[in-house]
């Protein structure tokens, strides 16, 4: 990934900063620069999402590209944030314990790296929400 593009994604990846339309109240993650409902009349501002949500659906990845091969098997899920928007993210847990409807919370992890000499990407993954970890 180009370093410039990576850098632009940092607020969204680190802190789940998306956007909100002040006219219709629409919430967007990943961030959008225009509101699909209000079009030109929309007023878009930054909006930070808490990162807690639930699993809508998931898949277990058994074979992956070289960057992720060491991590297989891992869980990739569509997560509905408590505020509404849905996003795709990795769930750090035993694949057997993943369930649709499972509550999750955000954690900060390495998302990948450009080989051993390139940039390291950091950002948000998810983990099952447990009482002790609140």
């Amino acid at each position: 990934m180009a370093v410039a593009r990576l850098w632009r994604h940092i607020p969204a990846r680190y802190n789940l900063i998306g956007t909100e339309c002040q006219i219709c109240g629409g919430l967007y993650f990943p961030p959008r620069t225009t509101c699909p409902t209000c079009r030109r009349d929309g007023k878009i501002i930054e909006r930070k999402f808490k990162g807690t949500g639930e699993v809508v659906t998931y898949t277990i990845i058994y074979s992956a590209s070289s960057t992720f091969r060491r991590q297989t098997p891992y869980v990739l899920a569509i997560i509905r944030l408590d505020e509404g928007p849905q996003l795709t993210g990795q769930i750090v847990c035993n694949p057997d314990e993943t369930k649709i409807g499972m509550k999750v919370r955000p954690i900060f992890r390495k998302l990948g790296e450009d080989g051993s000499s390139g940039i390291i990407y950091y950002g948000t993954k998810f983990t099952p929400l447990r009482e002790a970890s609140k």
Partner: protein
Amino acid sequence: MIGITSYGAYIPCYRIKVEEIARVWGDNPEHIKKGLLICEKSVPDLDEDAATIAVEAARNAIRRRDIDPKEIGAVYIGSESHPYAVKPTATIVAEAIGATPDLTAADFEFACKAGTAAIQACMGEVTMGMIKYGMAIGADVSQGAPGDALEYTAAAGGAAYIIGKKNLIAEIEDTFSFTTDTPDFWRREGESYPMHGGRFTGEPAYFKHIMSATKSLMKKVGTKPGDYDYVVFHQPNGKFPLRMAKMLGFVEEQIKPGLVVSKLGNTYSGSSLIGLAAVLDQAKPGSRILMTSFGSGAGSDAFSMTVTDGIEETRGKAPTIAELLKSPKYIDYALYAKHKGKIVV
């Protein structure tokens, strides 16, 4: 008055037992457990490093006191496993806690005492009025070469401290450091694993530096061992801090509450700071704490603290060390090697 406004810690959920490492190398596990007073150690997940551990610890510190991250004027990270050789860990952490861009940040290095050196830097800036709050973090994913004695202890974890003048949970009365050029432990640039001076790491390094810093601090503050409810020393294994405490005239009741190494391992820059967090988790207003770190190379930073009434407001807001150590996931040596990237040796 200056001191700790908040603190937070993080420990990865994986553990490997001494028995499992000993099985692979043909060592006697009972001999090692008795020699080091360690049963198991933490292991980072495949996608965890010193930066991610620092971020989790920092977020727990902010959560504990509902600090506005924009009021943090400095973020300093002590580690000997910074993910980049050039590119600060501190900027990653500052961004991830929402403290950017109006602040200063830097990475600190001084073996296992870089985190306490960062606390001292924050104290200076807060005292001078340059910043309102400073965040000092010690975090490491330590590496021991396969088959080396360090492999039984080198662990992962970290703790973050917010230093300020307001909303204190513990006042820091004073700090004192003792530093010399002592080559007890080192790692050259580009090398994967550290080298150490074997038995040389004990007397002239660990014991001499902690003893000198601690004694001088007590002299400066006008205290004696009996004045403290708790004492925390750097914990490279379970034996050294116990012996250090005895040599200085402390009793087991003072050192046991902060001695977490047997179930955690040596978290290097995180070690004494996680020990202090374990003490703060249970200390009462008025409790006096003495903490002395040790970093190879070599130096010690000693701190004398008194817990304030503010500590009660922070209970239950962020995980305690006991909670972070609870319900670990045990892994075998094969998975451990994968986690540590040890397949390339």
